[in-house]
């Protein structure tokens, strides 16, 4: 049996939630005040994910960096691998919102897409 403590992000209460795990399976969630806390804690313990946002170098455009995000959430454990690919990437203008900047970033199966328009100059 293993226990993990989390702060629920559902509302400003920030309940301290304790999750009891047995072989990676959630046995019990305590400390939450509402159902939101239960759902959050189960996901956060078993499969925490995040959307990563950053910028990518871009050449030939009216700006030198284009802001980007992962098109959907990626495993939390992969954040810094994703950032490594983002740091190494270089786009060429023009880029528009939603354009794929990196395909299948860090083997996550998720693309990194532009979140702003950079026009070619």
């Amino acid at each position, binding site marked *: 049996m293993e226990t993990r403590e989390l702060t629920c992000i559902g509302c400003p209460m*920030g309940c301290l939630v304790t999750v009891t795990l047995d072989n990676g399976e959630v046995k019990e969630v305590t400390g939450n005040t509402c159902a939101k806390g239960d759902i959050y804690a189960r996901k956060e313990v078993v499969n925490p994910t995040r959307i990563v946002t950053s910028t990518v170098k871009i050449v030939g455009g009216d700006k030198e960096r284009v802001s980007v995000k992962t098109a959907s959430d990626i495993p939390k454990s992969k954040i810094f691998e994703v950032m490594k690919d983002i740091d190494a990437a270089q786009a060429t203008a023009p880029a528009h919102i939603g354009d794929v900047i990196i395909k299948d970033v860090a083997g996550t199966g998720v693309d990194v897409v532009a979140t702003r328009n950079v026009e070619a100059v």
Partner: protein
Amino acid sequence: MKTYDIVIVGGGPAGLAAAVAAKEAGNDSILILERDHELGGILNQCIHNGFGLHTFKEELTGPEYAYRFIKQVLDLGIEYKLNTMVMDIAPDKTVTAMNREDGMFQIPAKAVILAMGCRERPRGALNIPGYRPAGIFSAGTAQRLVNIEGYMPGREVVILGSGDIGLIMARRMTFEGAKVKVVAELMPYSGGLKRNIVQCLDDYGIPLKLSHTVVDIEGKDHVTAVTIAEVGPDRKPIPGTEERYTCDTLLLSCGLIPENELSRSAGVTMNPVTSGPVVNESLETNIPGVFACGNVLHVHDLVDYVSEEAKRAGQNAVKYIADGCKEAEGANVIELCATDGARYTVPSTINKDRMDDLLTVRFRVGDVYKNSFVSVYFDDERVMHNEKRILAPGEMEQIILQKKKLDEYPNLKKITVKIEKE
């Protein structure tokens, strides 16, 4: 210079939403004046996600959210001028502005919408002792440098203040390879969203020290170290609790101040609590035809609420012009009051004859309240009593007033919002 019915000062989220709403309400003579080189305002540098859940039912980044409105402005053919600074708004609603192409020009507007946003409280206003070297930034300035200009201020960071921009920048700097050593917060609670504390600090093991402040800044040319100390209930540092952190960057996220210099010189009456204009149910200031919305009115935490508020300002400006630019009749004005933990309300007055069927009244509380009630009194009678598990200063609260309910109280003079234990 062409004349316009409605001049909107600021092309950020508030200005854009006001413009779109005004156009859709039937006015074709609208001009947005924006001081930066693009529309979108501060959202352009807020490249993180979390915007738009209320408005678009999806989670967008700042630039994406801004672009949804910019696109509407472009599609609707609303006129705007970039790189244009509004220098003055006269009480008669003549707007004086300037840019390099047009020079200085004046527009006699029928209605003006104030949408200038806010600025960050600088180090100077915080009276932080120590040297005054390079390497001290307000979090938003650092955000612009990193996200727009593409430059790193430093590699070892201490952050004072746990406002959302500071929290977001803690993660952002970490992503860019910096080490964020600590976030110190003067108050015993954070002003930021819980989600940001977890996902920007906890995820990366960045400590948040509540009831702490910066007591010394070292470094003659550039920051070399910062000392923080715990503060007592009087918010004064407790001797002996000092901790020194070597660092090359100090970011400040210690509050936002609505940018109302233009409003003041126009003669707009200010609310000392919000540092924004006093407005009525139509978001109109004491000067008929001058409306305010967004962070210039009061600092919001969700842009969705800014857009919603700005939409009303835009619609009301059109209505004001359509009704012949008349001063509101003062006969049926109800005063709104905030007491017992509620710090202010927006609006401050309601003219029942001009209110919509439903009116959202927004306010903030002055402290953290658990298991309390938001109560609304019509004169001395309690008419609303909503239980809240938590109320926090960082989160804007709202109540919704129904016109038909107000109609049941024909002699109503005063509506009071308070926080009650039971």
